[in-house]
């Protein structure tokens, strides 16, 4: 509770400090008391801090004392205690804006809103042409979620000052608070034209905008001529809205300059934190192209691998190499280069790269890469070479690569034992184990060939082989046809996928895959515009497989169909 209050008070005080005139200089009055008060406050000795701040005020440090007391009373949830102090001091210094602002904050915090309104009116009437009372009161109102009331104050300011230019920041916050998102974006744009460093405030203010309002915000922030700050703010907003590609699209067309590259770097950091790998890759690649940098290129290569883009990873890793001292290359470039080559199935080239590096890293240093080379050969479809790559670097019997090699050879029993211990079982391991656990067979070269085709990235061949293998493996037939169907669905081979899903749903009605087949069948029909057919299959799933985990999803899709229809 007190921590929250302190944070709130600190944030508000910090916010209020933005763009405000500096405090009038005080010739270190009560410096010793101030130092003692600060010590006590930071040590959490609040009672002592209160005494010390009072003493500092007595010694002439009035502003520091009031702000210090505000912080401490806020921690103790005793803000009303400050009111007595303010009631005495404000009449003595009626034009001291910081005292006036503190008074407004305290009155609002303890719920004396009518008094706050009167205090504001009294301050404003001293000089209706001064922007400060409007701005401070609007800020306090906004901080207390009184957007509509802030609107009234800002309109009053516009009437008395002739414009709200000096209040653009408050106007933006007020509009966002009222849910007028497009208008808020326009106001933020105006703020950032003058002060382009408010992007985090923009993100905080406009981030909660609902999806329906976001196009309006996009239009406001990108309308030509858009300031860099506005474009950057939009990019960060898009990241927060889970649309990282849109975010990069807002920044990518900018002509590279020192400022633009700096923004790209900030964006890449955020995208990396958000694990938006394709966008991180693109941003880092663009930075490297504009300002070549080995570290950026290597980060880009890693992001590309995460994005399953081995080609770009290879290009960036190789681009980093000449920018690095030779001694650092084996440790920083080689692993990325080999991993990329392995994923591309360029096994021979990978072996050559490793061979060239052997002089620098030695046989011991090369041994950990044997597994990567083996994967490269598997990708290239040569299981024999994969085995040979592992000569001299024998794998554990329970290593996943051992399991995969056994599976590709059709040695199901060995594969079953090894794959069970995969450190990070991905979807491929889960699928392989599902099949292996469904059949008592110890050997099946046909199944091995199907998984090998999948590993080589030949999805067409893999789908055909899984389907064909189903005949010889009746226990796992429904799953094998399902695997084929999933591959065809992922390939967007709609007609073929539909045939396979239909087969699972009709030939293997009692299988555990049948509900999935019904769901996918329904989805395929919906994509074709056959809502009635889609509905029938969703209903079949719900009625015939009431225990399936897919039933809630089917109900949702059924509702969506009904609503759309």
């Amino acid at each position, binding site marked *: 509770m007190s921590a929250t209050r302190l944070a709130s008070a600190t944030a508000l005080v910090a916010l209020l400090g933005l763009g405000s005139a500096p405090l009038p200089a005080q010739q270190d009055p009560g410096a010793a008391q101030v130092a003692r008060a600060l010590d006590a406050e930071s040590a959490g000795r609040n009672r002592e801090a209160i005494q010390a701040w009072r003493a500092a005020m007595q010694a002439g440090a009035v502003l520091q004392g009031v702000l210090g007391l505000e912080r401490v009373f806020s921690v103790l949830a005793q803000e009303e205690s400050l009111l007595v102090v303010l009631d005495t001091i404000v009449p003595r210094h009626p034009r001291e804006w910081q005292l006036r602002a503190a008074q407004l904050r305290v009155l609002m915090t303890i719920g004396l809103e009518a008094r706050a309104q009167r205090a504001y009116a009294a301050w404003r009437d001293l000089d209706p042409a001064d922007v400060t009372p409007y701005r401070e009161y609007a800020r306090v109102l906004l901080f207390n979620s009184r957007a509509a009331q802030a609107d009234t104050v800002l309109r009053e300011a516009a009437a008395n000052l002739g414009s709200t230019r000096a209040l653009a920041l408050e106007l933006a916050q007020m509009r966002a608070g009222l*849910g*007028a998102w497009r208008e808020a974006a326009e106001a933020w744009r105006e703020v950032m034209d003058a002060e382009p460093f408010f992007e985090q405030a923009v993100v905080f203010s406009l981030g909660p905008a*609902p999806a329906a309002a976001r196009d309006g915000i996009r239009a406001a922030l990108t309308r030509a001529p858009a300031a860099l700050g506005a474009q950057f703010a939009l990019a960060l907003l898009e990241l927060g809205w889970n649309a990282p590609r849109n975010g990069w699209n807002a920044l990518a067309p900018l002509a590279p300059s020192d400022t633009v590259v700096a923004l790209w770097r900030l964006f890449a950091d955020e995208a990396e934190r958000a694990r938006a790998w394709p966008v991180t890759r693109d941003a880092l690649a663009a930075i490297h192209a504009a300002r070549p940098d080995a570290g950026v290129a290597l980060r880009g290569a890693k992001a590309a691998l995460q994005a399953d883009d081995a080609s770009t990873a290879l290009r960036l890793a190789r681009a980093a190499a000449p920018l690095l001292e030779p001694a650092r290359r084996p440790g920083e470039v080689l692993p990325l280069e080999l991993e990329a080559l392995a994923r591309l199935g360029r096994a021979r080239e990978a072996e050559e790269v490793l061979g060239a590096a052997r002089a620098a890293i030695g046989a011991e240093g090369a041994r950990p890469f044997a597994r990567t080379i083996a994967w490269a050969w598997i990708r290239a479809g040569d299981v024999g070479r994969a085995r040979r790559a592992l000569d001299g670097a024998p794998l554990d019997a329970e290593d996943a690569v051992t399991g995969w090699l056994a599976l590709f050879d059709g040695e199901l029993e060995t594969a079953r034992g090894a794959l069970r211990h995969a450190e990070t079982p991905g979807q491929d391991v889960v699928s392989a184990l599902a099949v292996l656990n469904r059949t008592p067979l110890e050997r099946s070269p046909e199944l091995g060939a199907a998984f090998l085709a999948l590993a080589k990235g030949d999805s067409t061949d893999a789908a055909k082989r899984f389907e064909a293998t189903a005949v010889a493996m009746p226990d796992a037939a429904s799953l094998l046809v399902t695997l084929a169907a999933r591959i065809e669905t992922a390939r967007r081979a709609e007609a073929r996928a539909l045939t396979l899903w239909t087969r699972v749903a009709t030939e293997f009605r009692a299988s555990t895959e049948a509900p999935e087949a019904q769901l996918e069948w329904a989805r395929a029909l919906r994509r074709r515009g056959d809502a009635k057919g889609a509905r029938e299959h969703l209903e079949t799933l719900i*009625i015939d497989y009431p225990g399936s985990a897919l039933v809630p999803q089917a109900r949702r899709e059924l509702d969506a169909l009904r609503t759309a229809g």
Partner: protein
Amino acid sequence: MSPEARGGAGAASFRRVTSLGRALLRGALAVAALAASGRPARSQQLLVPMDDAQANHLKAYGVTFSALTDNIRSEWLLNYRGGAFLLPDLPSLRRAAQLAGVTFEAVDGARVAAIKAEIAAGNMDAVPLEKAPRIAVYTPPDAPPWDDAVTLALTYAGIDYQKIWDDDVLDTDLSQFDWIHLHHEDFTGQQNKLYLGFRDAPWFVQARDRDLATARKHNLADIPALKKAVADRLRAFVERGGFLFAMCGATETLELAVAAKGVDIAGPFSDGTPMDPDADAKLAWDRTFAMQGAHLEFAAGVNAMSDIDGHQVNVPSRRQQLGTFTLFGFSAKFDPVATMLVQDHRTVIGDYYGVTTSFARKVLKPTVTVLAQEDGAPWVKYIHGSYGQGSWTYLGGHDPEDPQHNIGAPPTDLALHPNSPGYRLILNNVLFPAAKKKPLKT
């Protein structure tokens, strides 16, 4: 000669006989198949519990409503297991319940008899539901379903309804509907005073222009005049036997608009003229459903219509915190309508804001039945009463599952709230006209 080759009446007669024969044969085969299947005979009834055993309370109303739509009679077991429904055990209803994820229990004759005996012995009753009410929702033609808790609930539960708007209310015979729902429309014609914060917002401008065009089409001077005319038609609908259910700002503003016949209660921003300074004294409370003696809010800058709302959410200096409200218990046998309206599996429900969140006790007419209140507070949440030959129900607040609802907030996904006790109150209102003998509305 084949039968088909024969001509004239004899052939037709023969075809009828053979077709009858085929039907009889199909029937006999079906009976034989059932007998041979060895499956237990179907139970006589399906009990749809509405207590915590129910997986999807909201869709249970939809299943019951679909039975009524198909002219299948059912029963509402008031105060029994949260207000359970008893439906005939028909394959179509089992299927509908299963598809919707609605829990049901098959009960045989003996179990039904035991349930009925239990009901007879306690504060419970079994009310027959006879006919699906014809439902209309007063909502702008382009409003999305999530703009209104009722359309949201009806859509989620799968209950069909017709949208009506100003032209329909003014031009058509409303007696074609049994039930009309109103949500946050401002019948004083001041667009909920949203001009304070949204006067330049495109949707606000669009709504104002649309309403102004409708007013002119009906030879009415301005939006306040249009909305007052609509309010009066709705008043007459209830007077002639209709059921009216209103939520949010529609409750308060309907009362004000009906009371203000011939009195200018709209601010100058909406009709170009100031409010009648004596408007408070001129309001005709004998015309209204629920309120009396309320005071209008004259300040154009204060986002409130009157002192009817207890919470005043849009007036910062008056805003009251949200609490909880408690549903009253009624005698099921002597006060079945009020009992129907409060059927729920929870009696204490978290409150939620709306343009009008609650109703100040001090302005309620003595004839009003309070269905739910916040204990110790000077306001109530849920009220009901009769007017002429019809009846009305008011529920304060905007969205039971979005307590702090703001303009532009994302829509509530009811799939995440299938057991919402607040939304049940809305659906009780949808179903209760089915239980009552229809009064004449002409």
